[in-house]
């Protein structure tokens, strides 16, 4: 019980933690610099042009918000399924969601061209007497991100309240106790408060699951509402939801495996947790693989020459290496998870998860760029080449995510203390 609380109250985070924060801070500053350059010079600093007007920014956006979905799903769906082993994973998975969604929201805003007018997406009585265009999936997407960000922050914070009270009481007196005291909102563990807390947790979990599915379906509709080959497809919403959960589970493993080692949490995040996560990742990965097959089948079954041309272009065109790398990471690599020995090895799981994260990023890049770079009219075909700033924003978004995450593991317990307490009391009871 003590290790997670102590990790949060220890005076210094250790050399590894400080090194990680410095690296993440450096990358975050690169992102800040990039944003400043972008505001001064416009989205032309990226490799965007016509016909490929969506490049890294939208890839990053879809990738990050997808990672967030996995965190919510683990926390909420396993809560509803009454899987008690989830207790050790829920806290950091929820934190991962909040940070991934925050990072993802930066990209569509910066991609607007004039990001300072992003609030025009919001329906408010304005001096221009205009309203948003409600029939556009881009407008739906704005509502989806807004709702998802706020709900995941609330879900995370409410679940954290009892543990903030524990930290307040463990911190004694002084500035730290006062800080935790303010954040704990006066939580005392009153039986009636716990009752309401339990009702709210259950209902929020019940809301979060359909929210995950609806939000990533909206992201998918950004594509399938477009009339381009490879995008205009009804398979996109379920396909995107599966992909989102796939990358989210991979990130939960890729974060959890080093974290349990550095913070000595092996007793809380056990090999059984990792193996269960690996099984979930394999299951949802197979759904993704099925979607790849369904996409190809539909292209040829449609007899539509543009759909068929696109399918062939993905496999043999200028970006074929992206397609085959995706297939390698998301289809072949995860088949290793069938072997119990692979699921029992933290090192192997870490490598596979990182592979899946890379594969899912490449998949989104492939979906976006291969559709755009050659459309119906050969005279307007063109290539997409990333610039320094494309890479800087990708690295910077990783830096910002890890900076937030590393700061969090120093401030709050990464394992839900009160849920572990309850688990222990239930197990020791006769």
């Amino acid at each position: 019980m003590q290790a997670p609380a102590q990790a949060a109250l220890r005076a210094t985070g250790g050399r590894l933690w400080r090194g990680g924060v410095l690296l993440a801070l450096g990358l975050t500053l690169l992102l800040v610099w990039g944003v400043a350059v972008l505001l001064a010079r416009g989205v032309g600093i990226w490799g965007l042009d016509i016909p490929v007007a969506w490049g890294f920014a939208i890839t990053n956006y879809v990738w990050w918000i997808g990672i967030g979905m996995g965190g919510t799903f683990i926390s909420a769906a396993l809560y509803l399924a009454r899987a008690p082993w989830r207790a050790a994973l829920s806290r950091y998975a929820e934190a991962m969601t909040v940070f991934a969604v925050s990072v993802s929201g930066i990209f569509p805003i910066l991609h607007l061209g004039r990001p300072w007018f992003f609030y025009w997406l919001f329906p408010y009585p304005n001096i221009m007497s205009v309203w948003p265009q409600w029939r556009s999936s881009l407008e739906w997407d704005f509502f989806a991100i807004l709702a998802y960000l706020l709900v995941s922050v609330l879900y995370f914070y409410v679940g954290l309240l009892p543990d903030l009270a524990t930290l307040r009481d463990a911190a004694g007196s002084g500035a730290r106790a006062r800080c935790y005291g303010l954040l704990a909102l006066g939580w005392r563990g009153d039986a009636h408060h716990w009752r309401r807390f339990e009702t709210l947790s259950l209902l929020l979990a019940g809301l979060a699951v359909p929210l995950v599915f609806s939000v990533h379906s909206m992201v998918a509709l950004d594509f399938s509402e477009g009339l381009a080959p490879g995008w205009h497809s009804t398979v996109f919403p379920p396909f995107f939801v599966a992909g989102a959960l796939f990358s989210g589970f991979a990130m939960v493993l890729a974060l959890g495996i080093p974290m349990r080692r550095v913070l000595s949490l092996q007793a809380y995040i056990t090999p059984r947790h990792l193996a269960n996560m690996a099984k979930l990742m394999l299951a949802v990965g197979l759904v993704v693989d099925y979607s790849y097959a369904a996409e190809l089948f539909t292209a040829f079954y449609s007899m539509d020459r543009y759909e068929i041309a696109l399918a062939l272009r993905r496999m043999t065109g200028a970006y074929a290496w992206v397609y085959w790398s995706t297939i390698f990471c998301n289809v072949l690599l995860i088949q290793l998870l069938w072997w119990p020995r692979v699921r029992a090895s933290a090192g192997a799981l870490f490598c596979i998860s990182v592979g899946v994260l890379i594969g899912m990023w490449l998949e989104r890049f492939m979906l976006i760029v291969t559709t755009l770079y050659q459309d119906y009219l050969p005279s307007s075909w063109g290539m997409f080449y990333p610039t320094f700033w494309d890479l800087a924003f990708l690295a910077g978004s990783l830096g910002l995510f890890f900076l937030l995450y590393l700061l969090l593991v120093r401030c709050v317990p990464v394992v839900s203390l009160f849920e572990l307490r309850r688990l222990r009391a239930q197990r020791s009871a006769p």
Partner: protein
Amino acid sequence: MSTAALHGLLAEFDSAAQLLAAVRALRAAAGHLVLEAYAPFPVEGLTAALGERTDRVPLAMLLGALGGGLGTFALECYAAVFDYPLNIGGRPPFSWPAFIPPALEMTLLGAAVLGVLAMLAASGLPRLRHPLFAVAAFERASSDRFFLLVRAAARGFDEAAVRALLEELPALAVIAVPA
């Protein structure tokens, strides 16, 4: 210490089972007393033993969901049909299926926001100061100790009699909580 300056008498227990038994015993022996129970995790059956109160969180969430969803849908209709009709691909102004996605998201958001607000408001949170926070032993209420508070404000509260009742229980300590 006089009863007027007393918030209540606090009994400290080592386990959830002891707290639950103590609540049941006190309710049977002296039903007129106002009891509050504190635990470091949700204890099953504790609110039932204390006397169930109406939980209004689900109702608040239902209202939030309806308000968020219907409100957004009404706003979309007002904007797209009456105030600023736009011809988008020849679709009618009242193309309601396209209005569902934002309404759905705001349904979920409205339910979540009102649920959290209702949970806090019904519990009297946020609260900066509370008499129990002045009790040193109560710091362990958030880690490994269980507490039963008998409120002094109730009618028929007699400090000596209640203290005698509490000391009959397997309590680790009985503490007077100043108001």
